[in-house]
């Protein structure tokens, strides 16, 4: 442990991918195989580093750990300040886990400008880890926003036919929200004289008048609601997903949209408890609308990727609902659902990508009977479909169940309506599974299908193990964030 105390492990986690990206920038782009293996090894190294972090994380300690402060940014009280608690450590590991998978699955599907593609992913990884570690508001914002540019490029360069529209929509929606967040940051900085998250969460709930709280809460909401995305700010998500390459969708669904939910937990809840209570009904109704409305739209989709994108909106509805029920079950459920959805939706997007690589279409009509030719694939896809539906024994069940229980204590009608959404979820996912993997083979291309190759199998297999593991023993996760959630609930219990 002594060795660890001085070892800046979080900075390593943030800057290892970024520096690898810079090194990659200098490599000749013709050596694409070298670029690929370099990126893969760098991201796997990051993953092991994150596991090392996880194993050294002290669950019994509340507050932030592995803190690093480096005051080199400006003359004011804005500094490079990173540290993690039980919520962020899990998100970091999730990020570090999904990035190598993104890289593995892109090896065959990305042929054009592979080097730049890999650079974008390394940058996204570094920035997102940075955002999860940041304990300074401005630094969070910088990382939060910086991850936009590589994602914009990923959608715009390697996307589908309508990629430019989708990339613009993604970028402008997100930046509009986050600039309001920036205004809130500046206001908080001028009000409290610091952007240190730990100090702000002590000062603000006590001294900030409720009228200010409401406006600032709305500014933060604008940013996070777009990112999550909540109804009615969700319209960029289906476009972005449909046009993005598979790995881009994985990154977007798996990690980037979790930043929004993370922002609610890390900032909105502890900073503005009164405003959060005041606006909780709004969040509840938007979440329920998202769950039911997005599920109904998903039912009608002919494009498989769009269907899964809408299911993402519905599943993130459970997350926001859980967060704003302000009790242990709700928050636990929301965080588990974040991680579960990160894995499950990523895996489902990979499934779409696998089919698309072979079939060159995403239309559900033209699929069918894939299970016959690809039994292993069908088995793994079944696990993810079930997790998405929320079958007991998978991680999806734990997340949805707990957040519904949490919401039930706060508002019965919300919980009942949300539970209705689960039924819709089962409808479209099972129907999708039936139409794609079962039924008759109508498309002659499918007859010549080969089963998963090794890299695809590794990617999906490892994810399916995690889905079942977390479904059976959710305490593996819940132990980590027991204390942070405890301290959040404490704020609300006295109100």
């Amino acid at each position, binding site marked *: 442990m002594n060795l660890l105390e001085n070892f800046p492990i979080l900075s390593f986690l943030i800057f290892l991918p970024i520096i690898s990206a810079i090194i990659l920038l200098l490599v000749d782009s013709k050596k694409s195989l070298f670029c690929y293996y370099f990126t893969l090894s760098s991201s796997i190294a990051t993953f092991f580093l994150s596991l090392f972090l996880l194993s050294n994380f002290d669950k019994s300690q509340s507050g932030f750990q592995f803190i690093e402060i480096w005051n080199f940014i400006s003359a004011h009280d804005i500094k490079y300040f990173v540290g993690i608690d039980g919520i962020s450590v899990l998100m970091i590991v999730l990020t570090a886990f999904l990035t190598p998978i993104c890289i593995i699955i892109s090896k065959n599907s990305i042929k054009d400008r592979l080097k730049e593609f890999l650079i974008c992913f390394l940058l996204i990884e570094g920035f997102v880890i940075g955002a999860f570690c940041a304990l300074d508001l401005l630094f969070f914002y910088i990382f939060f926003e910086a991850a936009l540019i590589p994602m914009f490029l990923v959608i715009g360069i390697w996307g589908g036919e309508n990629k*430019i529209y989708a990339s613009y929509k993604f970028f402008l929606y997100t930046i509009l929200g986050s600039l309001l967040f920036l205004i809130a940051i500046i206001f908080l900085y001028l009000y409290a004289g610091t952007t240190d998250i730990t100090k702000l969460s002590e000062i603000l709930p006590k001294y900030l008048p409720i009228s200010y709280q409401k406006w600032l809460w709305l500014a933060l909401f604008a940013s996070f609601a777009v990112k999550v995305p909540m109804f009615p700010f969700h319209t960029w998500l289906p476009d972005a997903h449909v046009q993005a390459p598979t790995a881009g969708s994985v990154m977007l669904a798996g990690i980037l949209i979790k930043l929004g939910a993370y922002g609610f937990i890390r900032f909105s809840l502890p900073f503005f408890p009164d405003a959060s209570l005041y606006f909780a009904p709004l969040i509840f109704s938007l979440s329920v609308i998202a769950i039911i409305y997005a599920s109904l739209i998903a039912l009608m989709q002919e494009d498989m990727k769009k269907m899964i994108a809408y299911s993402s909106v519905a599943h993130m509805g459970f997350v926001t609902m859980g967060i704003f029920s302000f009790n242990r079950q709700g928050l636990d459920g929301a965080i588990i659902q974040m991680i579960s959805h990160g894995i499950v939706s990523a895996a489902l997007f990979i499934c779409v990508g696998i089919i698309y690589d072979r079939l060159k279409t995403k239309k559900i009509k033209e699929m069918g009977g894939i299970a016959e030719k690809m039994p292993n694939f069908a088995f793994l896809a079944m696990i993810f479909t079930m997790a998405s539906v929320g079958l007991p024994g998978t991680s999806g069940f734990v997340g949805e169940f707990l957040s519904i229980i949490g919401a039930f204590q706060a508002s019965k009608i919300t919980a009942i309506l949300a539970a209705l959404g689960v039924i819709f979820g089962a409808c479209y996912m099972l129907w999708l599974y039936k139409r794609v993997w079962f039924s008759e083979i109508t498309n002659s291309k499918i007859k010549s299908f080969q089963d998963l190759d090794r890299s695809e199998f590794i990617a999906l297999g490892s994810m399916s193990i995690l889905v079942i593991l977390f479904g059976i023993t959710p305490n593996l996760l819940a132990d980590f964030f027991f204390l942070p959630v405890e301290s959040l609930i404490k704020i609300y219990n006295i109100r």
Partner: protein
Amino acid sequence: MNLELLLPEIVLLCGAISILMLDVFLRKKIPAISHISHLLSLLLCAAALVIISENFTLETLIFNNMIKVNFFTSYIKAFIIVTLTSVLLFSVSFVLIESKISAEFIALLFLATIGGMLMISANSFLVFYLALELQALSLYVLAALNRKSKKSAESGIKYFILGSLASAIFLFGVSLIYGYSGTVNFSALSELYPKTSSEIMKNVPIGVMVGFILVITAMFFKIAAAPFHMWSPDVYEGSAPIVTTFFAVVVKFTVTLAFINLLINFDIRWLGLNKIFIVTALLSFIVGSFGAIFQTNFKRLLAYSSIGHIGFILLSLSSFSKYGFSYAVFYSMIYAIISIGTFGFLNIILCKNSNRHNHEDDNESGQIYDIKSFSGLSKTNPKMAFSLAVLMLSSAGIPPLAGFFSKFYVLSAIISSGFLYIAIIAVLFSVISAYYYLRIVKIMYFDKPNNVIILENNFNSKLIIMIAALFNISLILFMKPMIAAITNFMPAL
């Protein structure tokens, strides 16, 4: 007399004159000598600045209190010399093509810079006006320097007529101030009408107020803030690319800093003038963002975007606090560096068919500066495309690039002075401007190459553009000393 305090300007002036003289007498014999002479004078000027800033840390007034030299002015002048050097490095190929007028061209650049440096040092309206005119007259000629192009002649005349009008307004304002107060000296005026005292406010003669308003209006014209911006897109488009670069990098910076220097002396809140600043800033946002969306010419687009940036500077000035002024200076510096890259990029664009610089042919230059001609640049020229993309994103204010921090500080200045709503409006406009900056990135990265242009294989220019881009990426590492230097030496308000 303390003449040595003016050494930087004197050295540059000697440089300008010697370049002209050497050109007359020695060009045919030793052509290289003119290059050596201008680099030498720049080096000497930089050396003079270093000496001054080391020996005269306190503020010194010379020439009957007409000129003021302190660490801050030396710091700014050093920055001007850096930007001028980069423009000169860009100008190498222009000088080669236009070898007949190259000496005049460089001498004019020097004279305009001297004008700007004197303006920054001015402590009297008279010196300020003379320096302004020294700069402006050089610029009128520079704008029309592109002799064979009709647009350049047009832009020269347009700039001359409108510029003289602005100068006349300035002079009229100064005469009113002199008539009602009896002095044109900044120090004397600020003693007559001290800052932030409401008692005095009632005693300020109406003539002085009107005079100030006229002076400020003229300065708005000079920095091309809306609604006094009409000349700038035309002049930027019509001039030769190197002249446009000079306009955007050196001239804009010097005039802005001179304006700030003027405002430091007077707390014109006693006129309620900070509202004028806010209105002008908002108009600049509107013109800058909506004007640029519909532009297809890269030069015009940059001209409109620079109007939007001026809006941010004015907004920062409107807070009339020490920090507001410091952040305005910081913003101008960052914007000057971004401009070195973006406007410098104009100089390395060549037409694919003729493989030459074609600032002379209006049709052709309209074609190659069309933003569509950049399409697919990321494939044909990845390094330059990357640099330009970084500069564009930095202008849009995306973290962690330099443009974000400059905007951040300006926003914090205006929020702290209570204009929260203005800050929100500024942010909304920067979303709109993000759209057209992104369009450049989109054209370079998402579209297929159409082979209209190639980039000149000029090591100097490419290096400078890349340095500008790298600066934008890495500013986060050395921002602290930069801001500390500005705020420490910004005179307290």
